[in-house]
């Protein structure tokens, strides 16, 4: 199949179908409503399930119910909507249900704006809801990568029995790019008879399955949390992903940037290289698990003087970068989160100023 031109939001909806998920519940919110509009037309054509819920709170529990009985399920939303789903995410993570959530981030806090932002980094990677849980978080930097991440999200969610979040921004959702849907990323759902409430007769069993998150016994709850923690540690070992850029050069500055912002940084790096100024970049493709070792190693390179965290938030990723760099290099931040994406010229200016200030 050749490439087709598609808007990010629509491509995300189609990618889920191509991955083998025909169930979708959602609530409208800008800038991702095109996913729902697209799927409200597309899913009935293929006998899938589309339902517009009464709220994002309800969406997250429709997801719980559907995932709990063993079916593939996904939803899309944007920042304020994800806040409302965060209660459900905590329950879903505790009940160990596989499900895919897409957050096409907009500016915040509060109603914020409807333009692109990366202001939900903390919410996605540190929790959002209550209790000790983690989401598996992937951050696409193009529509093609969003498609591939959505397709990979379903088997990952099933591998870990954990919710997976695709953390995109308004630009990923709204822009059109040529894409293709890789056939090899279609996957078969895993057998869930061990735990899903799919009906005892469905699995020829006389033993009920219970999907729950209540553990009143303190030892039992502690054991449950240790089990969850072991899964999160396994994610770190087995599925951390990042893209290195220009790391072979003797860069003076190492940029850490993800999503749409990293594309701008890539242009800036190319332009600086043309003038003989080398800058390297680590682009985390998974935000949890975070590419700790890659950043630590890259920051330790002898030529590297400064690490620059560039993101469309007020520095939410800085703490993660700092704990990787461990004080070996200064970690600087630049970002905007009103909805404007910083330009390559701005990035070049700040990167150079970081270096000058470091020398001064």
């Amino acid at each position: 199949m050749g490439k087709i031109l598609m808007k990010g939001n629509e491509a995300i909806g189609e990618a889920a179908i191509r991955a083998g998920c025909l169930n979708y519940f959602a609530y409208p919110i800008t800038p991702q409503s095109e996913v729902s509009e697209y799927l409200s037309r597309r899913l009935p054509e293929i006998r899938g399930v589309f339902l517009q819920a009464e709220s994002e709170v309800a969406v997250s529990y429709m997801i719980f119910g559907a995932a709990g009985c063993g079916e593939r399920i996904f939803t899309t939303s944007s920042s304020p909507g994800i806040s409302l789903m965060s209660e459900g995410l905590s329950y879903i993570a505790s009940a160990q249900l596989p499900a895919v959530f897409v957050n096409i981030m907009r500016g915040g806090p509060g109603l914020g704006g409807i333009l692109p932002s990366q202001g939900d980094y903390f919410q996605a990677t540190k929790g959002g809801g209550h209790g000790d849980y983690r989401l598996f978080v992937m951050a696409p930097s193009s529509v093609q990568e969003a498609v591939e991440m959505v397709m990979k999200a379903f088997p990952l969610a099933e591998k870990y029995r954990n919710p997976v979040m695709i953390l995109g921004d308004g630009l990923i959702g709204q822009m059109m790019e040529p894409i293709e849907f890789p056939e090899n990323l279609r996957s078969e759902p895993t057998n869930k008879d061990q735990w899903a409430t799919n009906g005892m007769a469905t699995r020829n069993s006389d033993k009920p399955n219970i999907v729950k998150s209540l553990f009143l016994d303190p030892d039992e709850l502690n054991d449950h949390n240790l089990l969850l923690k072991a899964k999160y540690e396994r994610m770190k070992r087995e599925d951390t992903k990042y893209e290195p850029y220009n790391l072979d050069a003797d860069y003076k500055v190492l940029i850490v940037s993800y999503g749409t912002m990293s594309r701008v940084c890539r242009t800036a790096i190319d332009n600086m290289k043309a003038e003989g100024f080398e800058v390297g970049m680590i682009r985390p493709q998974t935000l949890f698990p975070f590419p700790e070792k890659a950043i630590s190693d890259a920051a330790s390179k002898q030529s590297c003087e400064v690490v620059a965290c560039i993101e469309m938030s007020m520095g939410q990723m800085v703490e993660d970068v700092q704990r990787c760099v461990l004080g070996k290099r200064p970690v600087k931040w630049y970002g905007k989160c009103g909805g404007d994406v910083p330009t390559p010229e701005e990035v070049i200016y700040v990167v150079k100023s970081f270096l000058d200030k470091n020398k001064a």
Partner: protein
Amino acid sequence: MGKTFKKPEALTDEHTHYCPGCTHGVIHRLVAEVIDELGIRGRTVGISPVGCAVLAYNYFSFDFQEAAHGRAPAMATGIKRVRPDLIVFTYQGDGDLASIGMGEIIHAANRGEKFTTIFVNNAVYGMTGGQMAPTTMPGQRTTTCPLGRNVEEVGMPIKMAELLSSLETRGYITRQTVIKPKYIIKAKEAIKKAFTYQLEGRCFSLVELVSTCPTNWGLTPVEAVKWAEETLLPYYKLGEYKTPE
């Protein structure tokens, strides 16, 4: 002659944690009997609420999901939409359904989701220790309205069966009680009807069951039955509020 009366297969051998005089045990049994009689245990999924019945899955012998507070109707929607062949019911109390879960129940009912809700109304929050519920009666004392429910401050108790039956969407909405044997027979008939409508794929069904909570009412079980009959039943009138015919 064989056994004429036995424990339903849909119940486990567990002893329940419910207080003396609580009606949850009776209601569990009625639901289990109906599930046995309809032969649907192998394809039933129950959803327990946040409230005294959160551990209901310990007492029923089929698949169960445990909800967050008030969200059971959204979960039932999720299950029923992706697996319409499963028989799904939510089991909810008055705080769960009529307060924090009001949005979920109204929209599920209005979409005509093909699941069944067993709504246990005992006019008080049970598990959290007897706080005021949306169904608490005027003047009724609870731990958060120690002087009695003041309707000037917090309004009148909500009549869920009436409220839900006002929706234009087809549905089966009934209010029964289990406080005395004579009512229990009718309550079981209603529960069976509700599950049968679901089996036939006809409509959303809700059975409200006026119940007792002697512990949080501060009454003996016998006094609780008397109070329910004299105070709750005149306000929460029994009957079929809506049928799909």
